[in-house]
């Protein structure tokens, strides 16, 4: 494991914050907005870059867990600063079936809004958000960039939404 004692991870938007709306390309001719998913939980996965080893493992794990997320009626959205054609090739190569949104122009704008942009690298943090059906952030987490955060935190957050409902 990389040394995590010296890291300068961003502080994500805290629970209770209204999740900022956004609209980003999900395919070359389609866009998705967060608002479209009002009424169901949304899992926002900010990841640094398509093709990097940790990102690939992390997203493969989430692909594997789509049926579990669906039990909560939750929608999973991946976001990185890569362009849409990179996303398409990456998703096809790695068999990913959930949307990958291109936070490409202006670069990293949504990541900035969610306080997870790494200006020095020009990419986002490896960050997770669980947003409830009313569009409120219920859980947020920034992982050290080199470490795959897994999925237990997401599942716990989704469960606590149900408990609170």
């Amino acid at each position, binding site marked *: *494991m990389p040394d995590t004692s010296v890291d300068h*991870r961003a*502080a*994500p938007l*805290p*629970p209770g914050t209204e999740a900022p709306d956004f609209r980003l390309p999900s395919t070359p001719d389609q866009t998705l907005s967060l608002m479209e998913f009002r009424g169901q939980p949304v899992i926002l996965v900010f990841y640094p870059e398509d093709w990097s080893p940790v990102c*690939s*493992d*992390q997203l*493969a*794990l989430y*692909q*594997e*867990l789509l049926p*579990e997320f669906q039990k909560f009626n939750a929608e999973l959205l991946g976001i990185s600063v890569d362009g849409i054609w990179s996303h398409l090739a990456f998703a096809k190569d*790695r*068999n*990913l079936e959930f949307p990958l949104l291109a936070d490409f122009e202006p670069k990293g704008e949504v990541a900035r809004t969610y306080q997870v942009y790494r200006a020095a690298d020009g990419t986002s943090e490896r960050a997770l958000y669980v947003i409830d059906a009313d569009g409120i952030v219920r*859980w*947020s*987490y*920034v*992982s050290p960039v080199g*470490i*795959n*955060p*897994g*999925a*237990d*935190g997401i*599942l*716990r*957050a989704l469960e606590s939404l149900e408990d609170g409902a």
Partner: protein
Amino acid sequence: MSTTQWESVLAVPVDEARDHIQGPPDAPVTLVEYGDYQCPYCGAAYPIVKEVQARLADGLRFVFRNFPITTAHPRAEQAAEAAEAAAAQGRFWEMHDLLYENQKRLRDEDLHGYAEQLGLDVERFDHDLAEHAHAPRVREDFMSGVRSGVNGTPTFYINGARHDDSYDFETLLAALQRAAAA
């Protein structure tokens, strides 16, 4: 900083009746591996685990649980089910070893061949695979891993705590020895 922190610990304790286990129940150290038969890193870890088992002998209990990431490894699920089908005939570890020693040969006909090689009831084995009789068990392992913070394979737990360090022989052995002495 994150807004939530927790330790990654084994969410489902080792169960002598359910788990696949090598080594005595009263061993001072238990090593649990979540592994994928098609994952090259697990393949690299396989001889290292054998080596620490040889070194620690009865001082170590080793447990293997399935964590197939089929999105990346399309044969991993069927291989995991093959190991479980062998387990149903009391031959889990032999199949586990064969799969790791033949990671690049995990087609259905390969799995069938390993069952023959082990002298299993091949008809029953083939039937189990075709019906996915052991898929629920594999998924149960997988989800117990997810809940334990498994984020890739292999992930190891030493006496229930996730081993976040390297799993080269020296590091793994030292971690096991530390746990034994604790």
